[in-house]
């Protein structure tokens, strides 16, 4: 009995505590869904997530499949080799709806199997740069116009002075070309924007009356930052996270173009780079265009989500 009532009580407090949040989330969600752009972005993301999770459901083959020989470890005839990259084929002589690349792998299958790495790179790099940029921006803004702020801003200035891409090339060259290092490199160079924007937001939040009153009431800096400022910048941070994810995917593609892609991890950037390395840019549109479109689609999806979220979280729009 008592346990029951206790748990009932807990449930109540839980409901009490979470009720408004769920309510707020629901309202936010309702508002979000009024943005066609945001819904489209989400749909693309869901599709790519499904690709990433269940590639075998969506792709007719795995990347190991080769035109003509399939999964067999046999040899292609010279004529067969000569016919690669093969334009889209639907059953004759094999099934590859978007054609094949120069080694005979199906473009569509590669596309599906690479979705995971795009999501991984985007989210990991976005998250990392948020993890660096947001706290630094908070600190910088909160201690605006002190030496702390000044130091952080000077660091940002210095980093802006180093052109992103070549800098990234150097970083990746020092640490070796693999996905982890590429992500780290992107994060190292992309936290700047987060830092600057969060700092601006924090500066303006700090001027608000309730922060001042909290300060007067003797709340500690930590408390003010965590209770009063952080919750207000977090939605914004999520917006930047989405944008950073998009930027990271594009950065990875640029690196791949410059020959710095992790060849062990199939990625869309690497696919385009391969077109270039095999010198088929202007001869095999079925090979060049799909990965480019996929990159565009996922980056756009992240941007769409980010900017729709911004609308939802923007208090001025209440």
């Amino acid at each position: 009995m008592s346990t029951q009532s206790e748990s009932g009580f807990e449930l109540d407090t839980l409901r009490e505590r979470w009720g408004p949040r769920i309510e707020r989330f629901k309202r936010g969600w309702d508002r979000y869904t009024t943005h066609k752009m945001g819904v489209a972005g989400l749909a693309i993301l869901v599709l790519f997530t499904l690709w990433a999770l269940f590639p075998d459901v969506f792709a007719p083959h795995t990347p190991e499949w080769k035109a003509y020989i399939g999964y067999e470890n046999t040899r292609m005839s010279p004529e067969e080799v000569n016919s690669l990259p093969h334009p889209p084929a639907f059953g004759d002589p094999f099934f590859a709806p978007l054609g094949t690349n120069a080694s005979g792998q199906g473009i569509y299958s590669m596309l599906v199997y690479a979705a995971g790495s795009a999501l991984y790179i985007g989210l990991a790099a976005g998250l990392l740069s948020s993890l660096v940029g947001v706290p630094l921006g908070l600190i910088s803004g909160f201690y605006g116009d002190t030496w702390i702020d000044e130091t952080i801003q000077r660091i940002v200035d210095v980093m802006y002075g180093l052109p992103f891409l070549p800098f990234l090339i150097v970083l990746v060259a020092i640490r070796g070309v693999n996905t982890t290092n590429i992500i780290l490199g992107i994060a190292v160079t992309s936290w700047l924007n987060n830092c600057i924007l969060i700092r601006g937001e924090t500066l303006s939040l700090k001027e608000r009356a309730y922060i001042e009153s909290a300060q007067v009431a003797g709340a500690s800096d930590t408390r003010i930052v965590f209770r009063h400022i952080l919750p207000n910048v977090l939605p914004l941070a999520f917006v930047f996270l989405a944008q950073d994810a998009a930027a990271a995917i594009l950065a990875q593609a640029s690196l791949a173009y410059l020959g710095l892609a992790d060849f062990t991890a199939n990625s869309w950037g690497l696919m385009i780079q391969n077109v270039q390395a095999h010198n088929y840019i202007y001869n095999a549109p079925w090979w060049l265009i799909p990965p480019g479109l996929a990159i565009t689609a996922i980056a756009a999806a992240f941007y769409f989500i980010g900017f729709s979220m911004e609308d939802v979280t923007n208090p001025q729009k209440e």
Partner: protein
Amino acid sequence: MPHRRNRSDGANESRRKFLKASGTGAVALSLAGCSGGGDQDPTTTEGTGEETEADTTTEEETVEKRTEDSDSIPRGGTLTYGMAQNPDTSNYLTSGSVYSAVALNLIYDFGVEIDPVTYEIQPWVFTDWELQNADADQPEIAFNVRDDLTWNDGEDFTIEDVIFSHDYIIENEVGEWSSVWNNIESVEEDSGDWDCRMTLTQQIGTWDSSALGACPMLPQHIWSEVDDFQSYDPMAERENGPVGTGPGVLTTFRPDTSMQIQFRDAEEYPLTDLDWVDEHDNLVAGGPFLDQVNFQIYGETAALTQAFMRGEVDTHYGSLDTDKIPEAQDTEGLGLVNGYDSGFSYAAFNCRREPLDDVALRQAIAFAWDDYYWTQQLQQGYVFDGDFAQSPGYSGVRPESVFDGELLEGAAAEAFKFRGQGDSADPDVESIRSFLENGEVIDGSSGTFAGQDYPGSLSGVSASQSESKYNYTFDTAQSSNLDGVSDVELYVDGEPLSEFKGGPISILMDPPGENPKQGQAFERWAENLRKVGIPIKLEPTGFNTMSDMVYYNADYDMYEMGWGGTNPFGTSIRSFFHSNFAKEAFGENEGEQFAYNSTGYGVAGGSSDELIMDAYGEMDPETRNEKYATAIEKVYLDMPYMVRDYDKQRWPMNTADFTGAIANIVDPAYANWFWEATHIHQTE
């Protein structure tokens, strides 16, 4: 060729070929698919349509006979030559880029020339010569100098210029021209019957090419005014920049985008009309026939290739991308000049590292390299399968040529071919394993090894070992590297390889982004080796990093790379395999030293030092070639390098407008570009 040197080719795309320098490639030609040169197309008997098939064979391709009369050859025209990277400087003494050299090599002449087909040393600026005191520590060469040459600024060329050129480079120890000051002590006017007398610094078997042909002729009236050759900029001094005796005049030098060479009138340039050229079966005298060559620089190879395919450039540096060859062959007006590699691509073993110090293991690893997959499937027949560490283009010292074999043919050069199972691409795991378990070595004697017959060595030379150094067995796999591929692992003296070595054998390789096909081939190799039970790890590494690891630190198990611009006379193998060139020879400073002999061969895992030095000091050309061929075959059996392939150069050419290129010589686009430039002419 010693003087028109092969150099490193810049950055980026062709990084793999830094060391491989310019020279992919090789030889000959056959103006594939070209209508213009149809009347003399001795190589492809089946006709142009059969080109692909012809390319899949490894039969020797020979240089065509030329019967044209130079008077009937049309003169004039502009050849546009594309490059993927920019030249460095127009200063011939400091330039280190092949992309400058394609222009500058047309401006300067050397004492002697190497026949591009036979590699005989022929008169050029020097008319005749004689080696004197051959047995002295510092032999001398007396020679005569032509008196009918002029500088391209109109001044007369004199003996003083010859002496000045040598003095200037020797005095200043000009870095890029070290062969001059390394080989030549001095050049003076001769007091006797000869014009000049050259003193060598030491005995050099290849004294004719390495000393007489080492120094470019510099005009005294220009260079005596130059205080600091390092900062001298010819284009800033004169309108047409560098002054030389050669046929070319550098009229434009915009290093980021373009260069232009205009050719002097035929009367002003007598050298290509020399008797030996005129009488040569394969050469035509009286060139160059063109008015000028425009060089255009593109930012990336894709753009360059495309520029050729679309007719923006008539030809470009290097071989045409193999992916594009079928398309070029199908395109009216585009053709290919065949050529040989000036070097080779290889995978190297660090002979210092156990158990790679065992010839048997190295040979077994080579069995798993699927050469058919690489040469035929991936490269579509546009490379020759590799065997000896000497380009087939410089066949004079290749064992099968020297010892009466047919170039690139014969089972003696196939000792290490892929041990596959019938038609499938699966390796014959059982025979490779038993080869190791039995402790066999392909040591030069005939026999059946890992299921394949071997007729015995051509020169009669034997490998450094005749049985394996370690006791090899196969037992339960310990290395996770073999998971899902093989249940057993190679045990070395009873210890799993992965523990014996502290991990899988790692192979440093180019990032596959730069060369996706190679990436695939190496993955296949690694997979095959794992099937055998040998744990292998591929480590993509940037070129600079790799070359530091390899040449400065010798810190690797295996790596892959290529050499270009090797020597036609076989001397390159001294640098590559003699223990004097291994880092151990440098003693304390070893960390600072670049050691050509990266594998440590000669120090560990076998040696050919004696054979190499015997050849090096030999002054008789024919004997020298035999000795080099023997050394080369021993290196082949000991296998510090597994020579992977020689490029078949397919030099692209706008055959609608141009013809006359010499086919089937080494590296027509660069190393022999001088000869090509003096032969190419407009079609009728």
